[in-house]
């Protein structure tokens, strides 16, 4: 065992107080330092944190950004999401591969650069994009890639690459990213100017129960997709038994096609921190955690500095704003590349330093969440709305939006359209109006809510975005007249197969079976009974899966079967001579014919 490894790992573990619950931070630091978490390192971490080698391995092996095998000092992760493929990521991939002289999944022979694919990194409005270590490289072309690789080979640090110019806070020296915000529609709630600090001030003038009542009266519902009433969740958490309570902000937007939280974290962090503080006051929590997806690591330094500013201004810490006894701290927990961690109980597992397996429910997090304490998990946008409700009042919030869906919804719009970006609409906007705004009047299909949502066709474009009709976490992907919709469906199924945590049978195995059958059909080997097979298998997976991932993963198939069935039917071959279409008689006879040096008498063609 090398002494330097031992010393460094002890240091890393100590900086997290040798706390096993901070395993994520520890293994992330080790990965960053050594390019892997080796078996030897696992032993050292296990020893320092009083856990077991296999427990460390279980965490490391779960997350895409961590690995037991050595990776290059620089890791290039090209996003191959469906939108990136629409925008030419294959060309970029080819260029990367040939410039580096390695295939995807490999490391250059000098061991310096690793090339990988990664699913959606939250940059669909500036696709194709890649992550170079933590640095975002948007709007890539084959030409740009050549330049980037040339510089990386010369030893240029990824943060010093010239990748273009960002806007807003992306130009801040602590971010310095080429990312653009692309906020193309400013609504009344989130992106409108706000009176910073007023929401918290108003909250602290009320009793905690009154704050919860305000949220209830405003009828705020969760913006993450499930739409659970926020006030009720807070009430459950407040009234649950437990000495310590927690507020967790879910900033793990991983749904392909969504990127609004990226912009909120960049520009509206104050609205978010203030809302979390209000939540802490309302439910009686003294700790808040923001779980930020690993893909947004480029924002970490900036967010930390903004948190520090709030501590300096007594907006965080002890006796906040002079309110005696109200203490609230916020820490940031970085993820490491796992879609499932957007599921609230998996997110809690991850915060606890475990693999991101969803937890058994009941008990729900409001009763027994982070470290077995009552916990309220809320989406970024939800928490930002809270601040505004406390600032401007419940009635104001109720007056925006549609029946039973108060307030605004921020949509991440990408794919086939002239103006991809972030749009904040009052609830009740129709898909037709939305398509006009973004420049996609001739769209063939719209994927509402990302692949876990639904594909809808032209005859449904008059439907509206709200909790009673098209509910969505905010991902809107538009498909043009010429796109191959079923290919996209296949790509999304690949995504779910990759991202299933594997805990339960139907999601782990069922999605693979769905994808295999779909592939057969796409290859022209399908028969009409296969559509019933897809339907019944898909429904079965939804019914029996343990968490939201498996309960929605068959949606790309099921909603296209419902709304675009002719696309499937067009692929069906007429059956010949009572044979199954999957059976290839020529291939079956091939070897025998070769041996006999003559064609079959019965099957000549």
């Amino acid at each position: 065992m090398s002494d330097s490894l031992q010393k460094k790992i002890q240091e890393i573990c100590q900086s997290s107080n040798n706390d096993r619950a901070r395993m994520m931070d520890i293994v992330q630091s080790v990965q960053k330092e050594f390019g892997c978490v080796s078996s030897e390192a696992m032993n050292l971490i296990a020893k320092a944190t009083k856990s077991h080698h296999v427990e460390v391995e279980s965490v490391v092996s779960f997350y895409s950004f961590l690995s037991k095998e050595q990776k290059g000092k620089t890791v290039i992760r090209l996003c191959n999401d469906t939108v990136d493929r629409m925008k030419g990521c294959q060309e970029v991939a080819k260029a990367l591969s040939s410039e580096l002289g390695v295939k995807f999944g490999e490391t250059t022979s000098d061991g310096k650069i690793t090339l990988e694919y990664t699913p959606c990194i939250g940059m669909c409005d500036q696709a194709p994009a890649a992550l170079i270590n933590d640095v975002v490289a948007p709007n890539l072309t084959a030409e740009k890639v050549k330049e980037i690789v040339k510089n990386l080979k010369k030893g240029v640090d990824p943060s010093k690459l010239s990748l273009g110019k960002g806007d807003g806070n992306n130009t801040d020296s602590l971010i310095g990213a080429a990312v653009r915000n692309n906020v193309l529609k400013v609504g009344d709630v989130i992106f409108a100017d706000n009176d910073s600090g007023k929401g918290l001030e108003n909250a602290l003038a009320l009793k905690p129960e009154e704050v919860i009542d305000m949220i209830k009266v405003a009828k705020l519902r969760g913006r993450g997709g499930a739409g659970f009433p926020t006030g009720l969740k807070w009430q459950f958490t407040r009234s649950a038994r437990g000495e310590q309570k927690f507020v967790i902000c879910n900033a793990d937007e991983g749904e392909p096609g969504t990127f609004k939280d990226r912009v909120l974290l960049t520009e509206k962090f104050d609205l978010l921190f203030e809302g979390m503080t209000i939540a802490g006051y309302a439910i009686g929590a003294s700790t808040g955690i923001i779980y930020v997806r690993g893909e947004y690591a480029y924002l970490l330094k900036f967010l930390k500095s903004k948190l520090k500013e709030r501590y300096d201004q007594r907006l965080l810490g002890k006796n906040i704003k002079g309110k005696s006894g109200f203490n609230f701290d916020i820490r940031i927990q970085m993820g490491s590349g796992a879609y499932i961690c957007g599921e609230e109980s998996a997110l809690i597992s991850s915060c606890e330093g475990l693999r991101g397996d969803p937890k058994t429910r009941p008990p729900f997090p409001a009763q027994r969440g982070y470290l077995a304490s009552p916990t309220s998990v809320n989406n970024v946008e939800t928490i930002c709305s809270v601040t505004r409700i406390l600032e401007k009042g419940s009635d104001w919030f109720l007056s925006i939006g549609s029946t039973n869906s108060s307030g605004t919804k921020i949509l991440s719009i990408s794919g086939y359209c002239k103006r991809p970006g972030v749009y904040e609409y009052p609830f009740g906007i129709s898909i037709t109006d939305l398509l006009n705004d973004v420049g996609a009047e001739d769209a063939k299909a719209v994927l509402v809510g990302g692949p876990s949502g639904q594909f809808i066709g032209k005859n449904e474009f008059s439907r509206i975005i709200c909790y009673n009709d098209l509910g969505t976490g905010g991902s809107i992907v538009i498909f043009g007249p010429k796109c191959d919709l079923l290919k996209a469906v296949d790509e999304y199924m690949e995504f779910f197969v990759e991202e299933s945590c594997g805990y339960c049978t139907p999601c782990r195995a069922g999605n693979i079976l769905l994808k295999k059958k779909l592939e057969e059909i796409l290859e022209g080997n399908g028969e009409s009974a296969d559509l019933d097979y897809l339907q019944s298998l898909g429904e079965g997976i939804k019914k029996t899966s343990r968490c939201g991932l498996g309960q929605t993963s068959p949606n790309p198939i099921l909603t296209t079967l419902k709304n675009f069935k002719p696309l499937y039917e067009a692929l069906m071959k007429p059956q010949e001579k009572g044979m199954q279409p999957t059976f290839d008689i020529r291939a079956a006879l091939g070897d025998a014919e070769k041996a006999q040096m003559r064609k079959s008498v019965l099957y000549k063609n």
Partner: protein
Amino acid sequence: MSEKTVIIKIDGIEIKAKAGQTIMQAADEAGVYIPRLCYLKDLTPHGSCRVCTVKVNGRYQTACTEPAVDGMEVENKTQELEGLRRDIIDMLFVEGNHFCMFCEKSGNCDLQAEAYRLGICAPKFPYLFPDRDIDGTHPDIFIDRNRCILCGRCVNASRDVDGKTVFEFVGRGSEKKVAVNADAKLGDTNMALTDKAADVCPVGAIIKKRIGFAIPVGKRTYDQKPIGSEIESKS
């Protein structure tokens, strides 16, 4: 735990449950069998196989994890649920490599027994032919991951009963597997033949060496009576 009694209905029949019991526990005591694989009495319910999926007031839940609540209406033995269970068991068969007739666990295997009970003769899904490894390094215990159904019984038993954490899951999705607490193999761990974890595997994935055919095929547990019979004989 409170001894308060709650009444739930399973397939229209009222049964009594103690407050705090799960549907599975209440059903077992009342002599109603709900098919299951990952559940084992006295271990923390894992809720991963999903075979015990029932319909509770119209919603799909696993009986092993769902608490019994007064007035609950539970559907168990319906055509729909049995179909879903058959599909899940089918998935487990094609996801691993199971050759019942040659496996030394045959006749004592819960997966095989549930398949027979639910009337599965041949899988309806295509085989996935996974590449899985075996581990024979331990003097007394053999791991064949081709059989593993990821039920988590060994993980829970070793951690919670034996206090050893010999096993834990690694990887995710179809790459998920049971790993051992060592750089490489089971032989390097402190696993003992007397551990609870050596006893709980429902299939032929963790087996004790040298006792495989001590009881001949035909005279084994499920050769005599179908799985679940001992529970049903209580009613």
